């Protein structure tokens, strides 16, 4: 990036700028000619100048050039035309020139637009590229939202300007100058008037606009800070709620908006004042033309044709002039924006691009000793975190780092992962300084996990394999139209200085986890997922998801087999009463009344009990044997009890979670409704109120609510209504509901619901846990475990992985670190969210798994407590930034040092 915007633009686009300048130059010729033409038409054929006698002809399209010293050069003598013919010819020539000018304008504008957009793309890419290369400490100083605003919004006007940077002044200046020269040629004094006013405009307006630019800059800064603050609010929302500071944030935002408003309002006022003066000046000129020009014409010193041409030409003068002044303003504006962005992004000690270069080949193994020599790390305030630490780790060793709080172990781990840079001293791998190793080596042959695991928005799978996407290893083949498009993408990327790596290629390095492709990678990574105790979580996510039957035919095709295996196991375990199966001809006592009526899964989000109750077809099904009246009576009873129980509780009371029949917000509505409806015969109740009351009965489950309202008679009638409902189902509803079928997979329901094909008892103790364990074992027996795991991997983890628990995120991060064939694995208290027993189990599992895979990487694990230290070959003990003890567990235990006190804690 260059400090000066003009130089930056010129450096990357000078060829195109010169070309477009030439085109602009050439376009001036027809432009000038189109000025001269009206005069010729008026004076010649219309007023008859040169056609004084009948039959006289004049040359049309004669080309001659007046050259100083040489004299007139006749290039073409033209066609001889009569007066009327001349009128036609000149008029059509005028039309032709209008077309030519228009086409020139079209070409120039598109060319400029493309030029600008390419530069914008280059600039934006350059900025993000810089963010990727910022040194670690820079990220403590910048707000993410502000950087995003700069890349997205603030450089946007630059794109528009870049195309105009050189062309616009040339074009507009040329046009204005042409018009001015033309006027001058017609009449010196009229020309001088025009020139004088132009001079005032050109000098005064930019002066006035200086203030506009200053205001514009303030507006940009305040807006950027606003977006930074909004970003902070979103990120820190929990802190805000916990401390009841939402109104403090409101005050802050309101104050900022007020400031922005003031700046913007100032801006408007000043802008329109400038506009007013500008317009006034532009309008004064024609006034002078009419006055002075008219006077001159009356005196016969100017002919009428000349005056018409001057006025016509003048029409084209304020336009370009105004645009020119605008251009100058946007130049200054853009220059300021560019300066600010430049300052934000020009950072010392940017990472060398060579470090991050794309490398396709597998780097050599890092089976070398890791040495730390006199390493000193400081925090942002300059306080030392590590003080001249030296140590050496041999390849294949497992090392535990323990220490007092603030001992410095985590600073060492961050230095080893290059997340923080050393203040002095160095880390070497064999003979190479760690700081000089390219990321293609450190990112593939080393890995790192810490407790603040960051996950990207996307699926679990994306995040699990994120650490394997170093290069587009398996290129996608394109054919036909796709190939043309890809070629165009590559060409454009090159023209804008962007890389042409194909994001659509398969970037996953399958070989590095011992897989051959997408088909078997699950098998390759499963043991490690099991080692970090994450497979259960993923499996549960899979069980809770609804899947597309076409994509998981292995699972959906065996659903009948799965259900019968499940039944069998339930019976074997004596749990057959715990799950009440769905049977087309029977009422399921553990399901809601609504579920029993519909007996199917609702597809899409457009349906809810309330909507179904209000659906006319559904209402007619219920009305057929007066079931609606029975359900209405039941609904009234339920609503009454619910209102009676919960009436006195505040809406945010936790007991409302137990209610389930209606929300806290709906309760007052039902209270009012009950008052209105009590004692009213069913027949007189409006359809809307009926639907509201019936909807409450839909949520009712007898064993859960125990109101004793569901009679055998209602149950039977519900089952009958269910059949009636499906018999006459109208087309519009057929897509909305997928009926339960013991022989078929229900796509709209979750995998778990499909396997169970029934409802778990509401009253059996520990039923959900028992059933889940049973489902796992049935899946395993039928070898469908991986299939469900695969479904679970498609779970969307949400923004920053927030749809996963902290524990799950941390486990995922650890699994990710161990998946690739790294030779050095650094772990910085990665499982803080787990208790020590679980952590210890996971460390054991991982070491077992590494042994099973016959891998012996160097493992450097910063432990939260010394209790897990016996699992490691060597132990380094840190205290107050220094390495105080080292050795095996046994040696350190026998010494009377810090380690002993740490262990006994």
């Amino acid at each position, binding site marked *: 990036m260059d400090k000066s915007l003009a130089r930056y633009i010129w450096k990357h686009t000078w060829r195109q700028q010169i070309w477009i300048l030439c085109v602009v130059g050439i376009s001036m010729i027809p432009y000038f000619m189109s000025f001269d033409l009206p005069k010729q038409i008026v004076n010649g054929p219309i007023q008859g100048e040169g056609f004084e006698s009948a039959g006289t002809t004049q040359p049309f399209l004669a080309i001659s050039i007046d050259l100083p010293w040489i004299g007139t050069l006749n290039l073409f003598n033209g066609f001889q035309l009569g007066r009327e013919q001349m009128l036609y010819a000149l008029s059509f020539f005028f039309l032709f020139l209008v077309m030519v000018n228009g086409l020139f304008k079209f070409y120039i504008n598109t060319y400029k637009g493309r030029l600008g957009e390419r530069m914008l793309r280059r600039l934006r890419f350059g900025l993000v590229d810089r963010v990727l290369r910022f040194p670690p400490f820079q990220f403590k100083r910048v707000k993410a939202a502000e950087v995003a605003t700069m890349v997205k919004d603030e450089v946007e006007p630059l794109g528009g300007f870049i195309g105009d940077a050189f062309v616009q002044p040339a074009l507009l200046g040329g046009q204005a100058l042409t018009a001015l020269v033309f006027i001058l040629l017609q009449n010196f004094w009229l020309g001088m008037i025009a020139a004088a006013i132009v001079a005032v405009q050109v000098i005064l307006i930019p002066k006035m606009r200086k203030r506009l630019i200053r205001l514009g800059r303030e507006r940009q800064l305040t807006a950027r800070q606003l977006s930074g603050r909004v970003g902070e609010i979103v990120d820190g929302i929990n802190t805000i709620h916990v401390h009841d500071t939402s109104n403090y944030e409101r005050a802050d935002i309101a104050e900022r908006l007020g400031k922005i408003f003031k700046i913007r309002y100032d801006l408007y006022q000043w802008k329109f004042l400038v506009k007013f003066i500008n317009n006034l000046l532009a309008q004064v000129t024609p006034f002078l033309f009419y006055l002075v020009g008219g006077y001159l014409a009356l005196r016969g010193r100017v002919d009428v044709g000349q005056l018409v041409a001057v006025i016509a030409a003048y029409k084209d003068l304020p336009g370009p002039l105004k645009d020119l002044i605008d251009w100058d303003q946007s130049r200054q504006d853009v220059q300021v924006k560019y300066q600010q962005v430049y300052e934000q992004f020009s950072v010392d000690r940017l990472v060398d691009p060579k470090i991050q270069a794309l490398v396709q080949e597998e780097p050599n193994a890092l089976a070398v000793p890791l040495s730390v020599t006199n390493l000193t790390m400081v925090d942002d305030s300059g306080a030392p975190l590590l003080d001249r630490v030296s140590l050496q780790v041999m390849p294949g060793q497992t090392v535990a780092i323990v220490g007092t709080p603030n001992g410095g172990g985590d600073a060492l781990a961050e230095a080893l992962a290059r997340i923080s840079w050393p203040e002095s001293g160095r880390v070497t791998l064999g003979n190479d300084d760690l700081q000089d190793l390219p990321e293609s080596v450190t990112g593939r042959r080393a890995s790192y996990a810490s407790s603040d695991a960051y996950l990207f928005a996307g699926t679990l799978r994306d995040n699990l394999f994120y650490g394997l996407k170093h290069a587009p290893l398996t290129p996608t083949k394109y054919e036909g139209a796709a190939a043309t498009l890809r070629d165009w993408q590559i060409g454009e990327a090159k023209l804008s200085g962007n890389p042409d790596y194909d994001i659509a290629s398969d970037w996953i390095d399958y070989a590095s986890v011992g897989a051959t492709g997408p088909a078997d990678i699950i098998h390759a990574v499963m043991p490690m997922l099991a080692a970090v105790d994450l497979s259960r979580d993923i499996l549960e996510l899979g069980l809770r998801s609804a899947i597309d039957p076409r994509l998981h035919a292995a699972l959906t095709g065996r659903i009948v087999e799965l259900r019968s295996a499940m039944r069998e196991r339930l019976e074997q375990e*004596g749990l057959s009463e715990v799950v009440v199966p769905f049977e087309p001809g029977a009422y399921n006592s553990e399901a809601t009344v609504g579920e029993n009526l519909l007996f199917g899964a609702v597809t899409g989000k457009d349906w809810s009990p309330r909507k179904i109750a209000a659906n006319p077809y559904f209402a007619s099904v219920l009305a057929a044997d007066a079931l609606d009246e029975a359900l209405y009576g039941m609904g009234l009873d339920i609503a009454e*009890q619910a209102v*009676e*129980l*919960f009436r006195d509780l505040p809406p945010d009371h*936790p*007991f409302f979670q*137990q209610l389930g029949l209606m929300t806290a917000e709906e309760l007052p509505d039902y209270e009012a409704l009950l008052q209105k409806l009590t004692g009213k015969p069913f027949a007189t109740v409006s359809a809307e109120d009926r639907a509201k009351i019936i909807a409450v009965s839909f949520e009712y489950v007898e*064993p*859960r*609510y*125990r*109101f*004793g309202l569901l009679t055998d008679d209602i149950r039977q009638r519900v089952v009958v209504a269910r059949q009636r409902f499906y018999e006459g189902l109208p087309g519009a509803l057929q897509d909305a509901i997928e009926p339960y079928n013991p022989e078929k997979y229900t796509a709209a329901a979750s995998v778990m619901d499909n396997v169970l094909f029934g409802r778990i*008892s*509401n*009253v*059996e*103790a*520990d039923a959900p846990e028992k059933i889940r364990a049973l489902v796992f074992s049935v899946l395993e027996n039928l070898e469908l475990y991986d299939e469900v795991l695969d479904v679970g991997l498609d779970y969307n983890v949400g923004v920053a992985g927030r749809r996963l628990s902290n524990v799950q995120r941390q486990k995922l991060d650890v699994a990710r670190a161990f998946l690739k064939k790294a030779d050095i694995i650094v772990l910085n208290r990665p499982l803080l969210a787990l208790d020590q027993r679980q952590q210890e189990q996971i460390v054991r599992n991982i070491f077992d798994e590494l042994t099973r895979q016959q891998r012996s990487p160097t493992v450097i694990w910063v432990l939260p407590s010394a209790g897990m230290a016996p699992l490691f070959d060597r132990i380094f003990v840190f205290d107050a930034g220094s390495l105080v003890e080292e050795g095996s567990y046994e040696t350190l235990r026998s010494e009377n040092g810090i380690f002993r006190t740490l262990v006994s804690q």
Partner: protein
Amino acid sequence: MLLKDEVGMLKRVPLFAGVEPAKLKLLAFTSDRVSYNAGQVLFRQGEEGDAAYVILTGSADILVESDAGQIKVAGVEPNAIVGEIAILCDVSRTATVQASERLEALRIRKDHFLRMLKENPEMTLEILKVLADRLSATTAELSLERSRPH
């Protein structure tokens, strides 16, 4: 057994005897109905207590770990409440409760119970009274025990 019967059962538990029926109904509604088969454990000695149980039907054994294995120290019948101490103060379970036949119970969660107490001072007073009675009974028993010649 319906909700209203459960309220009747709660009413017969000394701890809740003085609490007004509307509150008991809410307590019953927000509690879970759970069934256990013979041999299933309601909670184990040493675990952290998160709920109290009111036995609705069936019976259970109270078992205590000893050097000689588990010993049955008492039995519980319908209308009895077990595990209530653990939800009033943070102590771990002092005994294991195991269903001796098919058993139905009302599981009152600790946070729900405490919330009810917080919002209904009269209920707290009732419970305080019961606990004070128990304490005085225990104290009397203890002094009787101590005054007895060894």
